């Protein structure tokens, strides 16, 4: 799902946070978004994900405005993920249950991601008691599991240990092959270089 942003202006009270003339994120790529703390990256993600409707300007998703149907194909892996107060298994299953997947499909997919994200030991643990890095894994799995066409990753490996970083990046690279649009915020130049197909820098007055 291509995203095209035009004249997007966001302000808090009277203070203008950013005004983006135009900006494009193409599908089938990993689009890296960088910029200093507080420049408005997460705020932009919230807007793109449809969580914040208090802005001026327009965003086109495959040329169209945001709709309920489109929302079904967009997801955000938040910088501060909120993991549901239920087991890790059920956290992963939740988006599938929302979409009325069959029991078998749910089990298959969830087990697949539990394996892939090395969550086997945490399978039945409550999501609210996870460690920072564990939450980020669950959050990624929960997002990928329903195959979104637009995936917003907000510093999704900030708390991931060195050993796991590899597979966390690998998973996203693999996912790119589905043709989805992946936009990723990171503060690590190395990560940007490893994964990014394009790079946008948010700057003051852009």
């Amino acid at each position, binding site marked *: 799902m291509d995203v095209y942003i035009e004249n997007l202006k966001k302000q808090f009270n009277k203070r203008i946070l950013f005004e983006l003339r135009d900006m494009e994120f193409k599908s089938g790529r990993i689009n890296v978004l960088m910029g200093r703390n507080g420049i408005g990256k997460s705020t932009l993600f919230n807007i793109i994900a449809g*969580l914040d409707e208090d802005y001026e300007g327009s965003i086109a998703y495959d040329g169209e405005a945001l709709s309920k149907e489109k*929302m*079904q194909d967009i997801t*955000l892996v938040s910088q501060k993920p909120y993991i*549901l107060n239920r087991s890790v298994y059920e956290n992963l299953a939740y988006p599938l249950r*929302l979409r009325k997947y069959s029991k078998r499909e749910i089990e298959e997919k969830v087990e697949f991601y539990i394996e892939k994200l090395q969550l086997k030991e945490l399978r039945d643990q409550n999501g609210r008691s996870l460690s920072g890095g564990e939450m980020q894994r669950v959050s990624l799995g*929960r997002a990928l599991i329903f195959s979104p066409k637009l995936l917003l990753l907000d510093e999704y490996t900030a708390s991931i240990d060195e050993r796991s970083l590899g597979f966390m990046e690998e998973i996203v690279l693999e996912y790119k092959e589905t043709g989805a649009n992946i936009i990723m915020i990171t503060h690590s130049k190395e990560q940007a270089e490893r994964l990014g197909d394009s790079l946008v820098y948010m700057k003051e007055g852009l």
Partner: protein
Amino acid sequence: MDYILMGIKEAIALLTSFDREVYSVVGRSLLVSGMATVLSSLYSIPIGLYLGIRELKGRRHISRLIYTGMSVPSVIVGLIVAIVLARRGPLGDLKLMYTVNAMIIAQTVLLTPLQVGLSYSLARNSGKRIKNTGTTLGGGNFDIVKLIISELRPQLMINVITAFSRAISEVGAVMIVGGNIKGYTRVITTSITMFNSMGEYPMAIALGIVLLVLSFGVNSVVYSYNTEE
């Protein structure tokens, strides 16, 4: 002060007497207030949460209106339900007046604004992150209401306990639509009021203690479903 001591003694006597009359009054209180709490929860909590997660226009005014509803005096609720259920009223044919069912209806109505208000406040103050999470995972408004219910169950339980405590301790509504008829619609609070107007204070206090014992029991049961710890 003697009244209080006598009341405590009387309460012990009542509780250990296994008097059928006493137990039926207690049972009726539990039935009426319990049913009203359950019934009002069923629709008021979803409604309150739904209003809370919607970004409605004129939100400030809506909030105030919702909270204002919590102040409806129970006598007024009783009166209005009585007008509707009375023989000459629109639902007179159902012959509900002065029955346990009428009391349940009145208390259900009474609890509605309280339950809507408390759930609304919960959604407004603690529901934002849950709403965002649900939305990004593809949930609609209805899914999000369900999600908040499961995520904030301990807090909702307290709201339900608060509602139950208002129901079990109120007398205005049940008195008007029930009439405190012995053997039919007499509950603990209407008995207390009656004994109070008879000047039988120890008995009134005794029943107050019985009510608290009952309430403790109910809270214990509800609380054991509360995942707080």
